[in-house]
């Protein structure tokens, strides 16, 4: 049994061992091991040249990572919390995402940006945001997110192996979730969605921290005699929608669950594509359960903001009643 945080740590270690051009950069990732201890022990083992504590400047981190990548390195940048990636937004949006195209393919930027994201840990402002949609809307980036230790272990390595820039969202409130994991070989590639649980009545489409919540909702629904299929998207850009379309064609009902505000959140794109593809199979419109369209609320009321089993089942009921 290993936690999700430790699984990423193990994956990073593997990548550092395998390729001497892989290096980690970020604030407090060295001796401290990062505020979530995801990089714990790595600086001690790989040295300060490969596990680099940077000055406190996110644009600086991304900008220098781009330079390092131009020199042949494969930097893995840690952003300390979701809400602190915005100072680097220009480097990500105008440089990281576009340089391969700008160079007509003559330059690759194999950079991974690790972002612990989402709420549920009782944190202060800016520490609980789900900002994946900003990046998924940006062509040239790949966006993935893991929901369990095994995926965490493999996906971080696959992200580092990718020759394209990857924004790697880590579900911070699941860092301490434990599981036995297969370290032999990955069962899926980086951009495949996965049907976690089969069902016949309705499809729950989700990713990252909400996967566990959806699995719980499925269990509760089962006791009420409803059979829900749960799909973990894993990759948000590109989307792997074949399993989703197949599922919706079977169930006729779909509910998308994520923590980000619904307005222009991933659910919007998913709903649009699913509706277009499965128009004649749908018995109800795709419904979305997400964060409300407000700034992330203070910790004492965050449970009301975050999609939970009740809200998911409420949407399931609304879908059936439609």
């Amino acid at each position, binding site marked *: 049994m290993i936690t999700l945080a430790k699984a990423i740590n193990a994956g990073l270690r593997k990548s550092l061992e395998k390729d001497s051009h892989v290096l980690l950069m970020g*604030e407090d990732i060295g001796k401290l091991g990062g505020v979530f201890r995801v990089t714990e022990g790595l600086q001690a083992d790989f040295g300060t040249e490969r596990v680099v504590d940077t000055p*406190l*400047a996110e644009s600086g981190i991304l900008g220098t990572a781009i330079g390092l990548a131009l020199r042949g390195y494969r930097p893995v940048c840690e952003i300390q919390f979701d809400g602190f990636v915005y100072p680097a937004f220009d480097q990500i949006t105008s440089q990281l995402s576009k340089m391969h195209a700008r160079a007509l393919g003559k330059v690759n930027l194999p950079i991974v940006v690790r972002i612990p994201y989402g709420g549920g840990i009782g944190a202060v*402002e800016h520490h609980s945001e789900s900002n994946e949609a900003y990046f998924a809307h940006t062509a040239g980036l790949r966006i993935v997110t893991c929901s369990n230790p095994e995926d965490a272990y493999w996906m971080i390595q696959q992200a580092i192996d990718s020759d394209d820039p990857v924004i790697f969202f880590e579900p911070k409130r699941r860092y301490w979730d434990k599981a036995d994991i297969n370290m032999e070989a990955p069962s899926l590639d980086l951009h495949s969605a996965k049907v976690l649980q089969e069902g016949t009545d309705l499809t729950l489409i989700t990713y990252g921290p909400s996967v566990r919540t959806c699995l719980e909702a499925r269990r509760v629904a089962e006791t009420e005699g409803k059979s829900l299929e749960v799909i973990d998207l894993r990759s948000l850009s590109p989307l792997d929608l074949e399993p989703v379309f197949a599922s919706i064609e079977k169930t006729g009902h779909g509910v998308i669950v994520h923590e980000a505000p619904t307005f222009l959140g991933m659910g919007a794109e998913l709903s649009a594509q699913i509706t277009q593809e499965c128009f004649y199979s749908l018995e109800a419109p795709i419904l979305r359960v997400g964060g*409300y*369209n407000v700034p992330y609320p203070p*910790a004492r*009321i965050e449970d*009301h903001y975050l999609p939970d089993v009740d809200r998911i089942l409420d949407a399931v009921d609304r879908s059936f009643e439609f």
Partner: protein
Amino acid sequence: MAQERLVQLLTPEGERVEDPEYSIEISTEELKALYRDLVMVRRFDVEATALQRQGELGLWAQSLGQEAAQVGSGRALEQGDYAFPTYREHGVAWCKGVDPVQLLGMFRGVNHGGWDPNENGFQLYTIVIGAQTLHATGYAMGLMRDKSDRAVIAYFGDGASSQGDVNEAFVFASVFQAPVVFFCQNNQWAISQPIEGQTRVPLYRRASGFGFPGIRVDGNDVLAVLAVTREALAKVRRGEGPTFIEAFTYRMGAHTTSDDPSRYRLASDLEVWKLKDPIERVKVHLARTGQADSVFFAEVNAQAEEMAATLRAKIIGMPDPDPDEMFAHVYAEPHAPLAREREEFKNYLASFVDQP
């Protein structure tokens, strides 16, 4: 860096010393008031730390060790001056008259700040490193347009000096000659990063390349900080443009209650800095010069205890916000879709009430 010029008026041993450029005339009453401030601020901080340990706060960012930098600069501010803090300026908030209970709201997790910055001229805490230095500069540009003789002080840390925003604030402040004092508490650490991880030269030197003066002051010497900040404020009021103060101090606590400094710094460093404690030297000075006796010290302690007890009671009794509040202040003007979402949320919550 230790050999740099450092303005000091009161040594760690409690001796008054002279500085060639800065002097201060201070009455016994004033000095005792400063001492009281320092003790109150520390007591507040200790109480908040305890409240966090007991689960009453979600997080706390201690100001331990930085009381002189904060009280010295905070007391230099005059009515109408405006402070832009980070998340650690509890001592400045104290001087500005912000209710300590309100200050704890965001650390408890009931709001993200929520006090009225205009009430005391103390802006909300800003967590995104460096962002507030630009707000401070803009506010100061507003003061100029209002032909006001008030000034602005922008707080930030040594780590923050690396952020683009802080350097852009220097550019704007200098180009527009805005009446803003940049007050950097160099507490030597940005979480686990020592100051050498941000700069190879003393921070106060950053200013001159942007066209304004910088000065380093002993941040654990409340008198020196007071004198230097007063002078800087006077200068910006006279329209001479921004000034940079580096208060050389030390973060004696953890970065926040979530942090574990034993992973990255030596306990012995802390011992060295304990000898430079900002409160002890004032106490020694007051006592040695006969300006205060044990009765006074006991009285201050009692006041501090009382404040702490009141604070504790108020925090423990502090209710959670109505969840519906998250919709309340997103916009100042009506917003139909959000109003509908809020209504749906209310109905959804209400749907549970009658259930068994």
